């Protein structure tokens, strides 16, 4: 690694624009760089092989599309800024059904506009990656205040009974590796995958290098973009894809359809089809549920957290160690399908589960349903647009285990 040449290049204005580019990055991979979460997301997408992106600007996600606008043509891909989020996701589905994989990024309001088309994508089994960098509020809210208010939108935002794969990033490395994981899951299960990030995760800069992302890291070899490719281990669960323009010249419809691709009104066939869409996801929880447990088996309280709150939870655990408080942390990278086993295993051994979230307990409600037979589930929600601090979590832990001392 030649540091002189790297810094010389980084010094020039033109190169500043390029610092995140593939070719340049190869030269500087060895040292870590200060990278923004949204840019790491774009990098992850490019490294996974995403070559189609359509989007519409919205804070705090726009840097993702800006990076893609710059990078995609350099690698022979396509970027289009569409007239709105509806058009963006529809263009992505069109590309996905033509044998590419479409990706888009947005924030809460834009995510709402996409919901109808997400239902369609599920129905036509179009692999798709949607990144929602969440901001506070319904409506415009506070555009650069962090939030986790779209958790339930990501699960249930679109109409009808449907499966959902929802991941949550808590730092810059996550933005990279979970974007790649989202691409892989979308491809394997032929369904949309949503990656949630809180504003602060999208906008923060951390030192980062693809080499240093650790667990759950994927590389380009984990992806197969052959149009219509179905992973052999899923051949009995994932329907053979209908790729436009192939010899088969298929029909694709959002109506409930049978294996011919054409609509069916047959009650049995319809029900079976909808179940198959559901089952192909929920039967693979083990593969889909990514998580970390810290201080496993040693806590009376388990802090269950995701996104920015998981960072605070991890910091709180370290503080707790210093203060001799028995805390474990269940850090979830996958919110849906629900990590049932993981949550219930922890629930069986702890007295309390504490769920800090930047919403009014959207995920705590899910955890409670799964865990309340064994443990007491406490929701710790915050919606003032500030982060939950490690100290706030620790104070709550202290209160719960009856050792509260003011500090």
């Amino acid at each position, binding site marked *: *690694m*030649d540091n002189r*040449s*790297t810094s*010389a*290049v980084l010094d020039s204005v033109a*190169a500043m624009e*390029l610092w995140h*580019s*593939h*070719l*340049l990055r*190869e*030269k500087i*991979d*060895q040292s870590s760089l200060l990278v923004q979460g949204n840019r790491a997301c774009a990098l992850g997408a490019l490294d996974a092989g995403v070559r*189609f992106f*359509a989007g519409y600007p919205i804070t705090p996600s726009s840097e993702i599309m800006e990076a893609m606008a710059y990078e995609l*043509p*350099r*690698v*022979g*891909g*396509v970027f*289009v800024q*569409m*007239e*709105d989020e*509806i*058009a*963006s996701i*529809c*263009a*992505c*589905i*069109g*590309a*996905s*059904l*033509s*044998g*590419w994989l*479409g990706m888009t990024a947005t924030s809460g309001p834009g995510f709402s506009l996409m919901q*109808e*088309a997400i239902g*369609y994508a599920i129905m036509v089994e179009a692999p798709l990656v949607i990144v929602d960098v969440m901001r506070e509020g319904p409506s415009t809210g506070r555009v650069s205040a962090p939030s986790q208010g779209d958790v339930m939108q990501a699960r249930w935002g679109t109409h009808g009974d449907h499966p959902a794969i929802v991941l949550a990033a808590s730092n810059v490395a996550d933005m990279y590796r979970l974007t790649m994981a989202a691409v892989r899951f979308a491809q394997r299960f032929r369904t949309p995958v949503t990656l949630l990030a809180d504003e602060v995760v999208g906008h923060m800069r951390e030192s980062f290098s693809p080499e240093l992302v650790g667990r759950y890291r994927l590389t380009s070899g984990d992806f197969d973009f052959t149009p219509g490719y179905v992973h052999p281990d899923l051949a009995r669960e994932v329907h053979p894809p209908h790729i*436009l*323009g*192939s*010899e088969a*010249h*298929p*029909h*694709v*419809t*959002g*109506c409930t359809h049978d294996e011919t691709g*054409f*609509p069916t009104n047959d009650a049995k066939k319809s029900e079976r089809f909808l179940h198959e869409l559901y089952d192909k996801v929920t039967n693979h929880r083990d593969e889909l549920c990514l998580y970390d447990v810290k201080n496993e088996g040693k806590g009376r309280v388990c802090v269950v957290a995701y996104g920015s709150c998981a960072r605070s939870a991890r910091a709180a655990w370290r503080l707790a160690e210093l203060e001799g408080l028995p805390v474990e942390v269940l850090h979830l990278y996958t919110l849906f399908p629900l990590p049932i086993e993981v949550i219930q295993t922890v629930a069986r051994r702890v007295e309390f589960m504490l769920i800090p979230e930047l919403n009014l307990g959207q995920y705590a409600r899910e955890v409670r349903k799964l865990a309340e037979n064994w443990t007491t589930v406490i929701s710790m929600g915050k919606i003032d647009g500030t982060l939950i601090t490690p100290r706030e979590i620790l104070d709550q832990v202290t209160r719960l285990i009856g050792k509260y001392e003011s500090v």
Partner: protein
Amino acid sequence: MPLDIEQYLHTERLPHMWCAGCGIGIVTGAFLRAMVDLGLKREETVVVGGVGCSSRAAGYVDVGTMHTIHGRALAFATGIKMARPEFTVIVLTGDGDGAAIGGNHLIHACRRNIDLTCILFNNQVYGMTGGQVSPMTGWGDLATTAPYGQVETPFDLCRLAEAAGATFVARGTAANIRPVEEYIKQGIQHPGFAFIEAVVPCPMEYGKRNAPGGVLAMLDDEKARSISKAEAARLTPEELEDKIVTGVLHHKVGRPEFQRSYASIVARAQAEAAEQAETLQSESGGAVS
């Protein structure tokens, strides 16, 4: 002996879903004949429909077809065309699908001048949902959601498309279908956004409230009201009001087409990337870490 058009038709899906007297089939027939004349390759042709009776035409065409969501067919088609530029992509839409819920996508597809062909079946009503007003329902017409008569003015869709940047714009009627076939052919061959409005009768949902003479009278009326662009130029705006101006109304060459323009950006960006890689290589003394 099978008809020529049957090579492009899902004959096993017939009879079709449209009501007796519906004009959608007439225009679909014209489309199929245009495909035959152009000899379109089935594996390189994609037909995208939105939602509505008109959009359902896509499902009878035996090429790659998509029945999408309401109003968004052009957005799907944009993704398909950008991903697979070699495809001939045709969008079938209705006046509700294309001009109400999908109106924004229509003007933006025109503005981009992307190489798609959009055939909009204008039956002046929401047929599939049972006769509600559409943005093309005439002033004073009755509909289930205009029981006292429509008091909004319809679009002139061809002028809208032209103003928004479409480079081939034509209008015809089911009553005089041969020219429509010709417009569709020209539209598909045109290297840019082609918009073709086909005025069709909907005897069930529009006619039964507004045209007591039935579908034949509706077709006669379409004929009687049709005039050419040249004739239209001699009429006052008042005289033009209930006329259907037909023909190729706008044809422009030379305006950049979106997909090709983007392809040249890709070529440029790839060349730049390669050059930068080389510079970097020589600056670091040829050592690749």
